C-alpha cells in the first residue's frame, strides 16, 4: 500500500502546530497503524529529522496509551478497536489519512501527537480506589458476588482509561470514563463502604480538571475501544444524585457525649 499520512506536528505546547504530509510506500495490509508511524519515524531518523512523538506501550489493546485521532475519529474508523490494534487492511491504497492529537482543555498537547492525560490520573487519585490494607491476598470467593453483578462490574472495569471518550465528545466530557470507574467499584461489595464519597469526589475532581458535561450526544460510546455502554452515564447520574441528595456526609457528626469520671 502507498499512503500519505497528514500528521499534526507541534514541537511543544508553547509553539503553534501545523499539519505535515508524510508519504509512505510498501506498507503491508497486516501492518498496525503504529507500525506505519514507526516506518515514518525510521525514515525521519535516517534523514536526521525529528521523529513524530506519539504514545504507545502494550500494543495489544490493554494499556490505553495509544491515542490518535485518525480521520476525525479517536482510535480510527473501526468499532471496539484501539489504535495499536487497527490494521492497515481497513484503509485503501493511496488514501490520505489525517492524524491528530486528542485535544481538550483538560488534556493539552505536550508534543506532536502526545497529550497530557494526567487529569485522568488525578480523577482516579481523588477516589477511584477502595481503602483496604494490603498484604496477603485474601482467599478467593470469601466475599460472595453474584454472577450478574460480577459480569456488569467487569464490563465497566474493562475501561483502559485511554480518553477516547473525551476526544470524541463535543463537550470534551469525561463522563463515560468516570461512569465506568464509578460503576465498576459501586457494583462490588468491596466498593460499597466508600460508594457515596467516591462518586462525589470523582465528579468534583472531573469538574476541577475542566472537563465538560454530558449533553447526551453519545459520541463517547461509539469511539470507546472497550465498548463501555453509554447507559453507564445514566448510572453515574443516578449514583451521583443519590449521593448528592441522600449521602451520609451531610449534617456533620452525631452529638455523642463522652463519659466523664
Amino acid at each position, binding site marked *: 500500500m502507498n499512503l500519505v499520512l*497528514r500528521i499534526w506536528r507541534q514541537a511543544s505546547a508553547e509553539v503553534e502546530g501545523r*499539519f505535515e504530509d508524510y508519504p509512505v510506500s510498501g506498507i503491508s495490509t497486516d501492518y498496525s497503524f503504529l507500525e506505519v508511524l514507526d516506518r515514518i519515524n525510521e525514515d525521519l531518523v535516517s534523514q536526521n529529522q525529528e521523529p513524530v512523538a506519539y504514545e504507545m506501550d502494550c500494543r495489544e489493546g490493554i494499556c490505553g496509551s495509544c491515542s490518535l*485521532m485518525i*480521520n*476525525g*475519529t479517536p482510535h480510527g474508523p473501526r468499532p471496539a478497536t484501539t489504535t495499536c490494534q487497527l490494521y492497515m487492511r481497513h484503509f485503501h491504497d493511496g488514501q490520505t489519512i*489525517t492524524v*491528530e492529537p486528542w*485535544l*481538550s*482543555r*483538560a488534556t493539552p498537547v505536550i508534543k506532536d501527537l502526545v497529550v497530557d492525560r494526567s487529569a485522568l490520573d488525578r480523577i482516579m487519585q481523588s477516589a477511584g480506589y477502595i481503602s483496604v490494607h494490603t498484604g496477603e491476598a485474601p482467599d478467593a470467593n470469601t466475599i460472595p458476588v453474584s454472577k450478574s453483578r460480577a459480569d456488569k462490574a467487569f464490563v465497566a472495569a474493562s475501561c483502559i482509561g485511554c480518553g477516547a471518550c473525551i476526544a470524541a*465528545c*463535543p*463537550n*470534551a*466530557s469525561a463522563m463515560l470514563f468516570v461512569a465506568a470507574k464509578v460503576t465498576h467499584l459501586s457494583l462490588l461489595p468491596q466498593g460499597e463502604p466508600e460508594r457515596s464519597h467516591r462518586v462525589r469526589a470523582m*465528579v*468534583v475532581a*472531573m*469538574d476541577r480538571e*475542566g*472537563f*465538560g*458535561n*454530558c*449533553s*447526551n*450526544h453519545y459520541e463517547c460510546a461509539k469511539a470507546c475501544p472497550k465498548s463501555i*455502554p*453509554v*447507559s453507564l*452515564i*445514566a*448510572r*453515574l*447520574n*443516578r*449514583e*451521583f*444524585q443519590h449521593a*448528592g*441528595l441522600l449521602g451520609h456526609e*451531610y449534617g456533620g457528626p452525631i452529638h455523642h457525649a463522652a463519659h466523664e469520671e
Partner: protein
Amino acid sequence: MKRLLYLLSTTIGRKLIVALTGIVLILFVVGHISGNLTIYIGQSALNNYAHFLQTSPMLWVMRLSMLAIVMLHVALGVAVTQENSLARPESCHAGQSWYLHVYQRRMIISGLVLLAFIAVHVAHLTLGAGIGEVFRLKDASGHVDVYSRVVTTFQNAWIAWAYIAAMMFLAIHLKHTVRAVFQTLGFSRESYFEFLEFLSWMVTLAVVGGFISIPLSVQLGWLALL
C-alpha cells in the same frame, strides 16, 4: 439547602436542574397542545377551555411558576453550554464538517430561538400586541373569543409561517430532550434505548404536528371565522 448548593456547584447538578425544569416544559407543551386541539371541536369548545384557564384561581401561580421555570432552564442551559464549549476550545478538528459542528450545538440554537418565540408568542396571543380589536371580542356566552383571535391572526400568511417555522425548532429541541432526560435523571438502560428513541419521536411528532396543524388549517381554509 446545603445539598442544593452542593448540587449547583457541580456540572452534573446544574445539568440535572436543566433536565428537571425541562420535564416541566415538556409536560407544559403536551398540555398546551391538548388544550389547543379543542379548536377542532369548535369555537365554543376552545373559548370555554380558555375561559376555564383564565378564571382559574391558580392562573397567576401557574404563570409565575412557568416564568421562573423558563428562566431557570434558560440560565442554567446557557451556563452549561458555555462551560461545555470552554472544555473544548478547538471545536472543529480536521475530520469534522461544519454541519456536524452546528448539529452538535442544536440544543442551544433551538433553545435560543424558542426563547425568542416564547416572548413574541406571549406578547402576541396572550397580551394582544399587534392584534387590535379582535383581542377584545366576546363570544355568544360572553367568554373571550380566543377562537376568532387565533383564526384572524393566522389568516396572515407571514405570521402563520413564522409560527410553523418556530415549531421546527421545538421539534429539534423535543426530539433530543424527550429521550435525553431519562439518561440525565439516571433512568436509562441499554435495553430501553429503542423504546426511548421511539417515545421521543412520538412525542415530538404529536406535539409539533398538533401545533403546526392550527396555522396550517387556517391557511388552507379548514378553520375559518364563523
